[in-house]
């Protein structure tokens, strides 16, 4: 008997999702293996609790699997889609279980500003990831904290203001300035390539 190759060998994320949408379990397994480190890493970075992070990561991958048929490539990369599911579920977990989130400074220090290359970030070239880290490093510390609180913890401007003990207007300004700085860096990087 001649050996056969796995149908999912080297398949793109989109191809794996298409396979999952048609009930191909091997494609689903390959997809899980491709993303489990990143989804778990994201949940763990935000929660700081491995057991809860596993629950959240599993739920995120289950949802990605079940919702594979509705993935729309026009709305963004597969990696963004999956990680956004993970982020939203982690925010829900933080709210529902009143879990204590990782201190934003820890999240920033351990992950976002790390110079270690992220081996999983295949969707983003190392240059782009490096530029992004530089852009984050270029933000004022209070802008970076406000951005992390808003994006990773889903805090509204009012909640950021409360957490940071600053007026609402100041919280809005920090969030706005932080995100616009990132956007400008990305736009500028894009125009130089």
């Amino acid at each position, binding site marked *: *008997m*001649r*050996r*056969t*190759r*796995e149908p999912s*060998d080297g398949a793109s994320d989109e191809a794996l999702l298409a396979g999952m949408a048609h009930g191909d*379990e091997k494609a*689903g*397994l390959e997809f899980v293996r491709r993303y*489990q*480190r*990143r989804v*778990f*890493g*994201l949940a*763990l*970075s935000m929660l700081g609790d*491995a057991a809860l992070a*596993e629950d959240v*990561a*599993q739920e995120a*991958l*289950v949802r990605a*699997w079940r919702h594979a048929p509705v993935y729309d490539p026009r709305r*963004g990369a597969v*990696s*963004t889609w999956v*990680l*956004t599911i993970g982020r939203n579920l982690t925010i829900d977990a933080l709210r529902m279980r009143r879990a204590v989130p990782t201190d934003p400074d820890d999240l920033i220090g*351990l*992950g*976002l500003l790390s110079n*270690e290359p*992220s*081996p*999983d*970030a295949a*969707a*983003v070239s190392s240059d*782009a*990831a490096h530029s*992004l*880290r530089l852009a*984050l490093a270029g933000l004022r510390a209070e802008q970076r904290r406000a*951005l992390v609180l*808003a*994006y*990773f913890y889903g*805090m*509204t*401007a009012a909640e950021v203001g409360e957490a940071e003990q600053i007026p609402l207007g100041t919280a*809005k300004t920090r*969030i*706005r300035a932080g*995100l*616009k700085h*990132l*956007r400008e860096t*990305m736009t500028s990087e894009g125009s130089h390539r």
Partner: protein
Amino acid sequence: MSDDDIGSRLECDRYADDLPELALGILTGRERAQALAHVEGCPSCHAEMEQLSLAADSLLEVVPGVEPPLGFEVRLMERLGMASGLRERVRRQLRLRQFSVVMACVLLLAVGLGVGAGWLVRGGQNPTTGRSAFGTGRGGSIETESLLHAGRTLGNVTLYSGRTAWLFMTVDDGSWSGKATCEARLVDGKVLQLGTFWLDNGYGAWGVTLPAGTGHILTASVVTDGGVLASARFGSGATASATMMPKPQAATSGLGWMAR
């Protein structure tokens, strides 16, 4: 500039400050509804909003990955109620990985003890290199190479060259079931069939104590009815200078022992 243009511009200015919060998904209630309604009807704000969303989502890409706890995949398969066959396959892979880790630890321990014993036998003289004594003071070394098929790694082969030489392989092909033969090609061109073992859905681990005076192994291959499944090449032509007779094993034909 027409009155409509001026009105539209004023409208954009009014919502400009809300766009970052909208992109971050933290705008709520009435503010969110009004901002969304404007963005949907305004191409320039829509484009700005997309750029801000891209910038926000890029933050996800720099969060480092972390290996999930052991058994993560199996638990996920159970949660998904996946076919028992695939679930069992994942379990087998997990067991195989665990077995390989345990075997690697045992082998390292054995080599460490051997080096230590050799050092004591020689009266406490410093071993010359990491490839020094194994029991009798003869040189022994461990070499591990990947089992490759068309550039894809399907497992690995570890070869210990020493007084009692052995070979251990793990195969993780993922598709083929049936009998497989381990074949060694020596540097002088001679081909030896070292034994057979079973692959179950592509997975198996097998080891063998090498016959005395096996010589320099250049490649170790897994061969099935369909031909060579994968091969590992030992760069230096590892020496398998066994002086002991192989131990017969009941679980497989030939000389090996097997992990199931």
